[in-house]
């Protein structure tokens, strides 16, 4: 049942003894590989020291890395070899073969650069199965990044940008498999940046140019959130995109307010569905933070954004979060949010009808009851807020 698209019955349902035996088998293979590794590694060390950047050495790195991609030194060796090969190709003064010349012509590149492109593509291919098996290995993502960087350095924009677009496809697929892989999200930002830079043709008109990906990336975060609410990375990325999104849309005061209101509506809907999900509260906090001029981390969304706006939104959100308590009286995040926003509110407006110290003391009491492990923290909070 290897066919694509049909659910596999096998993996999760083997009985224990079979599983135990397989595990043992894997451990034995790994140990044997490690042993072999040591022997090969010694050989490799010697070759690299001797500046033996031959194909044989290269193949040795492939072998070692396939068994153990966490061995970052070997990645360094590989890059030394590749660097050497690229330099040699680019400096080459011998005429290319007819075949090579024709292929290069077709790709719209001078033969030397075409050769470099092919080598880079080959190495990217080499990485794919490794990435699938070890999606959280820093060094694999790093090497990919290096390859793409090298391509950008040596090749004309139109070739490099094609490679970067392919990377976008790859990272979308990886995030489809594991939407919370932060390597994937970080890499995605890098890819988007590179594509935008290469597509802007250096004219500095990034925001309105055709290379501007902020709208599509914003839509991507919406899609990822809808398929899994608990996605810290997606919410974070969204928050990073907002300032640029608004400036790219040339949003005026009214548009900005509508936008902020829509984001609050979205996160409130999510919080009603699951107030126990911390990633949602982080995003709510971010939105609230944009109202604070003192907060350097969060660029303001509203324009202008002064005391009046701050007070108004704080009031509204405190009211909204207060309502969330109904049916979720055991949710500590709600009390934490209430205390935080109330504290901020009292800095902006005097204590009054909207929120009282008595109420805040009540919330703190609840918090202590729900989360006694963090008593120290709550005591600290109590002192800081003067309750």
């Amino acid at each position, binding site marked *: *049942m*290897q066919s694509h*698209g*049909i*659910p*596999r*019955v*096998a993996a*999760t*349902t*083997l*009985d224990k003894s*079979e599983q135990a035996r397989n595990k043992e088998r894997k451990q034995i293979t790994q140990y044997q590989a490690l042993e072999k590794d040591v022997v090969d590694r010694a050989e490799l060390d010697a070759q690299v020291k001797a500046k033996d950047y031959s194909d044989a050495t290269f193949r040795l790195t492939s072998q070692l890395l396939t068994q153990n991609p966490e061995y970052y030194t070997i990645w360094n060796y590989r890059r030394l070899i590749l660097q050497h090969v690229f330099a040699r190709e680019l400096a080459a003064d011998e005429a290319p073969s007819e075949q090579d010349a024709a292929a290069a012509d077709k790709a719209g590149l001078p033969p030397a650069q075409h050769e470099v492109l092919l080598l880079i593509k080959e190495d990217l291919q080499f990485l794919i199965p490794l990435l699938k098996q070890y999606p959280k290995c820093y060094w694999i993502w790093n090497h990919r990044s290096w390859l793409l960087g090298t391509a950008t350095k040596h090749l004309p924009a139109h070739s490099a940008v094609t490679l970067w677009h392919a990377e976008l496809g790859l990272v979308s*697929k990886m995030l*489809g498999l594991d939407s919370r892989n932060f390597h994937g999200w970080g890499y995605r930002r890098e890819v988007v940046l590179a594509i935008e830079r290469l597509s802007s043709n250096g004219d500095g008109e990034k925001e309105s140019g055709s290379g501007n990906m902020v709208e599509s990336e914003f839509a991507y975060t919406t*899609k990822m959130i*809808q*398929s*899994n*609410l608990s996605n810290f990375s997606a919410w974070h990325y969204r928050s990073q995109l907002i300032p640029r999104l608004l400036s790219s849309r040339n949003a005026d005061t009214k548009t900005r307010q509508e936008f902020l209101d829509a984001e609050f509506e979205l996160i*409130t*809907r*999510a919080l*009603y*569905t*699951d*107030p126990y999900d911390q990633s949602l509260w982080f995003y709510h906090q971010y939105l609230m933070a944009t109202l604070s001029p003192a907060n350097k981390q969060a660029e303001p969304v509203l324009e202008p954004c002064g005391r009046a706006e701050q007070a108004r939104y704080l009031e509204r959100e405190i009211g909204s979060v207060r309502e*969330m308590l109904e*049916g*979720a009286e055991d949710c500590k995040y709600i009390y934490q949010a209430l205390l935080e926003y109330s504290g901020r509110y009292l800095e902006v407006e005097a204590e009054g009808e909207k929120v009282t110290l008595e109420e805040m003391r009540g919330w703190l009491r609840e918090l202590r009851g729900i989360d006694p492990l963090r008593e120290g923290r709550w005591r600290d909070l109590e002192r800081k807020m003067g309750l």
Partner: protein
Amino acid sequence: MDSLDNTSWDVIITGTGLPQSLLALSLSRSGKQILHIDRNDYYGGDEAALALSEAEQWVKKHGGDASENADSAYSHATISLSDAQEEGAKKLGFSRAYSLALAPHLVYARSNLLPAVVSSRTHSQLEFQAIGSWFTVTAPLDGLPSWSRLTRVPSGREDVFRDDSLDLRSKRSLMKFLRFVASYDEESEQQRMVELKGLPLSVALKQHFGLKSAAAVGPLLALALPTVSEIETTMEFAVPRIARHLRSIGMFGPGFSAVLPKWGGLAEIAQVACRACAVGGGVYVLGQGIKNAIRAEDAEDSKLRLELTGGEEVTARWLVGCPRDLPATISKPIPNQADPAEDIMKSISIVSSPLTSLFPPTAEGGVIPAGAVVWVEVAGSSSPSVRILVHSSESGECPAGQCVLYASLRGDPSYLDTAVQNLLESMGEQPKPEVLWQMQYQHHAEAEQPQNTTSSGHVFTLQPLSTGIVLEDDVLKDVEEAWRKIMGNGAEGFMKFESREGVDEDE
């Protein structure tokens, strides 16, 4: 083939329905001499999958009422064809393009059958496909144009988040209920469950979970699939079933909770199981049943002496079958018939459209399902609803461009057609999809069988499948009990086999 007359066997299994076939599979490596017979001329027994012409024959055979079909679980079978088609209109494919399941079942990802299929090395011969989405069809409201509304059932947090028909409070309450259901059998919730269990689901939702909207009840009922009306469905019934659904989601892939076996459902599993037993040396004979037990036990060799319907006499150490396949002289006569009110009305409809909107992908980049479940209200909340399993042509049960609808109801059989029509109408497709062919029949519930007790106890009665549409774990447990009786109490390795040499390994 040599005559069966005067042959001697370790085990004779009668009937090739799913329970009997699973037993045959479990014994396939035991080295025992097994004779497996079926009085029909096809495999699968009550769970058989039939081509069109076979279905027509089957309907003829089961056309009468219950008394005329005393040895069958089915009766009152009829067929209706659509009126003569215009030129170029959709029409039926050829007979063998169809594999209609008499007893279609959902197999939940958590079902105990699936690990057994893997450990018995039969999974490489079977293809399981996803049953993706669940829907409800609500009856047209008075005063509004008669469009039934098709709504997708939210099956988890993200579904609830996205569902626009639920306001914030309802989202919160529904999530609260789903969270309770997900841990209803844990210590923390046991007390609460005890308090709530006798309440109707709809009442408990309103009073204890703050779910005021009546529209939210339907989807939850759909997940529980009761045969009774809304008001009769208790928490005790509904909660474990909804939990089963929730706990099965994502086990084999994101976004779905259950699978269906391709090419005819349980019949396919039965066939593969019988094949495995045949490979292990079992002998298969169709068109034969047990007519009589000549002598219950022979004092000398303590074997059963049986007469087959063809007149042959055979002996066996063990006889296993479902009650209807065992002659009355062996199995205790059923003291009281099951309540006819428990009978289920069923229909199989072939529809002229692929009904694509019932089969959205299970998740971003996920599989395209081959099955969907639709819960159709027909006569208000005090009447049971109709359950419809929809199988696309990907299930192998019909040609491309068509679907098979399996409807079942405990109640008035005329509602089955109403439900099918409501569903087709609610799809909003122009022109409205048509029913090209339909058969209707009744499935009789089996009374609880007391475990057979002949003087030596060498006859084992397997429980037939229930009239329901979900494959329950009891089926395999019953088979295991029979297996243990035959193999001896110390036996180990039920359904656990090594792969045969030369057979392709999955991994």
